[in-house]
């Protein structure tokens, strides 16, 4: 069965107060609800929520080969308004089924969800 990564993008909470608000609680409830529904249907093959991008560290090894200088910078690689906030792995029979599940992820109405097929290395020759 094809596997899709549902990458959840959105604007991040800007302050501690915002992330503790009642609204945040509702969002968490909505995610719990999705997790239960997707889990019961056997669609969710994994997933994580990510800490905000102000906790991110970007690593790049210079020289284009292993063993070069390690360049460490704070923050995410790309500065965009919307940040990757988490992801699910969805096991669906085809893209249409994956779309119908992705549309139930709260991030789809709070931000956007990008569906990417996961490469299956198991059967490749």
């Amino acid at each position, binding site marked *: 069965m*094809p596997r899709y990564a549902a990458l959840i993008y959105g604007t991040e909470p800007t302050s501690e107060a915002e992330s503790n608000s009642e609204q945040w609680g509702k969002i968490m409830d909505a995610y719990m609800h999705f997790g239960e529904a997707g889990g019961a249907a056997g669609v969710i093959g994994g997933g994580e929520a990510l800490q905000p991008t102000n906790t991110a560290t970007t690593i790049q090894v210079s020289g284009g080969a292993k063993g070069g200088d390690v360049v460490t910078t704070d923050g995410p690689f790309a500065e965009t308004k919307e940040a990757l906030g988490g992801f699910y792995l969805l096991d669906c*029979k085809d*893209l*249409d089924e994956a779309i119908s599940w992705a549309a139930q992820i709260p991030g789809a109405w709070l931000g956007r969800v990008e*569906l990417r097929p996961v490469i299956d290395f198991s*059967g*490749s*020759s």
Partner: protein
Amino acid sequence: MARQGRVEARDRLQWVELNDPLDEIIRIEGGQVLATLIRLTGDIDRAEDALHDALVVAADSWRRDGAPDKPGAWLTTVARNKALDRLRREARRKPKEEEAFRLLTETSTGTDDGSDKRDDRLRLLFTCCHPALSPESQVALALRTICGLTTVDIARVFLVPEPTIGQRISRAKAKIATAHIPYRVPEAHELPDRLRPVLATVYAVFTAGHHAPVGELGARLDLVDEAIRLGRVLVELMPDEAECVGLLALTLATNARRAARTDVQGEIVLLADQDRSLWDTAAIAEAAALVDSVLRRGRPGAYQIQAAIACLHGTAPTYADTDWPQIAELYRLLEMRWPTSVVRVNRAVAVAEVAGPRAGLEVLAELVGTPTERWHLYWSTRADFQRRLGETAAAADSYRHALGCPSNDSDRRFLTRRLAEVEGAEPDTR
């Protein structure tokens, strides 16, 4: 360059390798056969490979023994066996190929003439028009797979370079396979969202047939019939969608003039000069009834407006007695919804009938210097206005521009005749 090579290699369906009448049979049957093979193999490339193999066998066997009674069924059977051969040669099969193998084996004994086969082209249409594909890719892929148009033909329809079309098609096919875009007609509740690209594609199929990009004007009338057939199926599926009905009415009313569009020598006859007794009045009446019923719903979209225009032409007793003011107004409404150069040129024609050729030229003025200048009908419309204004030198120049654009053989002969006429009438400008 490597990418380019891959595109070429993938575009391996050469319908035109065979000579008439085999070519004709394949052109008519090919789309159906390919659609069925895609269902059976679950993969467009795999289906094209199989059909290609079958065509190689057909080229030899049909030429020797003549075409079989049911060429479509013959091709499907041979292609299915060829697909199985190819799969058997693949020592390690992925799960997806195992599934294709199972499908092919299961169906190889059955007769497979039921509703599955009838719906295959509709399935293929919805797959090609999946919203996960770019709009440009959707239409190109549909014309390639459902209608068997070559990338050269499609490039001419869209006025873009051929490699661009090849890339659009190969990227779309790769995405269908990689992202597992399904091969099915959507559920009833999904249909409205999926409709717009499907209608655009059916209209593109109709247009490619109504005005063939290469050869004679009517060289691809099979595409017209296919578009009308698909249009009827869509109305059956979605009777409440006004634009579905509008598209069907548009294709019916436009096609109703088919018999009068060319003379006995196969030369183009313009609307003004057509023998209206040759028009298919039954088709026009059907279209007019559809337009009446659908406009009453009060959601006039682009196809309904064009259908209304086509019906006004269809019911006019003569060219002069056509309701040009209403047609010009409908084109104005259409241009607000659909601001394309094609609509603009058509509006210019209607405006010229109402307010004279000078007013028509003014409507065309904004198109100067745009990519529309690669479209022969833009130039021939311009030329016609200039000719009617007595500006014969300018008209001749426009006809020469028109002849410099891609067009079919019928158009070229028409333009050449007109050029000779205005050159004959051209006063010495020195």
